[in-house]
């Protein structure tokens, strides 16, 4: 009995070590995955915030610029398309994300065209309500950029974790898949420089 135990001891030790290593790997992967999902929900809510501002904006513009029907309808359509494109946060594939990004960019484009038309209506530009909406919209675009960047960072941490050497062996075993990231827009990579 005693002999058997001493013979088994090294194997038991190895099994235990393996268990600890794999367990730690698995737990970390779960944490990183959850972080990325949280970051995603913040991305979504930033986009949602923008979508929520649009009906108000459209109504305000309508009051001054009745002739811009086409531009306004384009915004409404793009908004509908953007809010319909939803992503399953447990499984963010590159295709899904590209689709999402395209729909949101469609809305961005329609919005910026609307804001260009506004230039023709000085009374609208001076409207208090419009000015407030405009600053809320600017802030929301900022929020979108911030949350997108943070989502990409969170996905990066997760992806590196499941692709690095020991993790690579276990990722398939536990079904961890690489997550998709936002493709960056022009000029987004420049590192900021402060002079002092």
């Amino acid at each position: 009995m005693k002999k058997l135990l001493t013979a088994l001891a090294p194997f038991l030790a190895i099994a235990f070590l393996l268990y600890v290593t794999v367990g730690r790997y698995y737990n970390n992967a779960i944490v990183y995955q959850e972080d990325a999902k949280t970051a995603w929900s913040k991305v979504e809510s930033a986009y949602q915030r923008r979508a929520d501002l649009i009906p108000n904006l459209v109504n305000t513009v309508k009051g001054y610029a009745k002739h811009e029907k086409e531009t306004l309808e384009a915004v409404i359509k793009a908004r509908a398309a953007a809010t319909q494109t939803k992503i399953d946060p447990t499984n963010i594939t590159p295709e899904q994300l590209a689709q999402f990004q395209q729909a949101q960019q469609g809305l961005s484009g329609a919005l910026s065209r609307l804001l260009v038309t506004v230039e023709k209506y000085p009374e609208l530009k001076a409207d208090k309500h419009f000015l407030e909406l405009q600053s809320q919209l600017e802030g929301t675009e900022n929020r979108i950029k911030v949350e997108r960047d943070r989502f990409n960072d969170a996905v990066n941490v997760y992806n590196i974790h499941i692709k690095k050497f020991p993790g690579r062996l276990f990722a398939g075993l536990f079904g961890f898949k690489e997550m998709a990231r936002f493709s960056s827009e022009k000029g987004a990579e420049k590192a900021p420089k402060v002079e002092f």
Partner: protein
Amino acid sequence: MSKLKFIVLFFVIYSGFLSMSGQDRYMLAPVPKLVIEKDGLPQKPTLQQQQTVSVYDYAHMLTDAERKKLQEKISKYNDSTSTQIVIATIKKLNDDISLYATEWAHKWGIGQKNKGNGIFILISRDDHKITIRTGYGVEHLLTDALSRRIIERDIIPYFKQGKFYEGLNAALDTIQKILSGEFTNDTSDSESWPFWAVFLFIFFMIIIIALVFGNSSGSSGSSSGGGPIIYTSSGSSSSWGSSSGSSSFGGGFSGGFGGGGFGGGGATGSW
């Protein structure tokens, strides 16, 4: 007669103590050096710097006296509401100031973690740009539109005349008015002992005191001895320690930055 003397002496010493702590309050800590780290953002100040500085005037836009006055206003507001306002000035920025300031404030963790009640004002001197960044927890009060209004009405008219202190002072007043009543400072409570622990501690102290003084003769001794001991012990564990720290440091936040998050809310303007 001797009692009167004692009271007079007490007041003399007490007022002396007050004026001493008052002098401490007026000491102005220097602005720490601006160190840009690998992530492109300024290094987070040390805890002591967080406690002594809330206006990081890297670009030297304010006189010492002006900075002191702004810091006192900010520090006092933090004491009563736990809301942390930080102002920073830099010379020039080759980046989108709104995004940069958001990440800066997020990294430093301005505001309390669970409340997100941080506000960060960044001024880029040579770009003539100013931005107000709002933490997650104040976005619904100090909305982007209101931030814009503060910049346009309170700040820019003064900044155009080169009156930076006046502009910032007016902005602080408006911000505090907008946020008034929303947050209360209960950070010292949450950080100190839970209620039952304080209660148990006091309870055991009473028993110990009763045992020590109960055997010796005077009944008046036990009451006069017991009172102050309980008072000072429970006091020193929480409120006295933190409040004495904040008054002697002054200018910053007694508990340091609380870890509040920023998500990109706010407004930017130029003068």
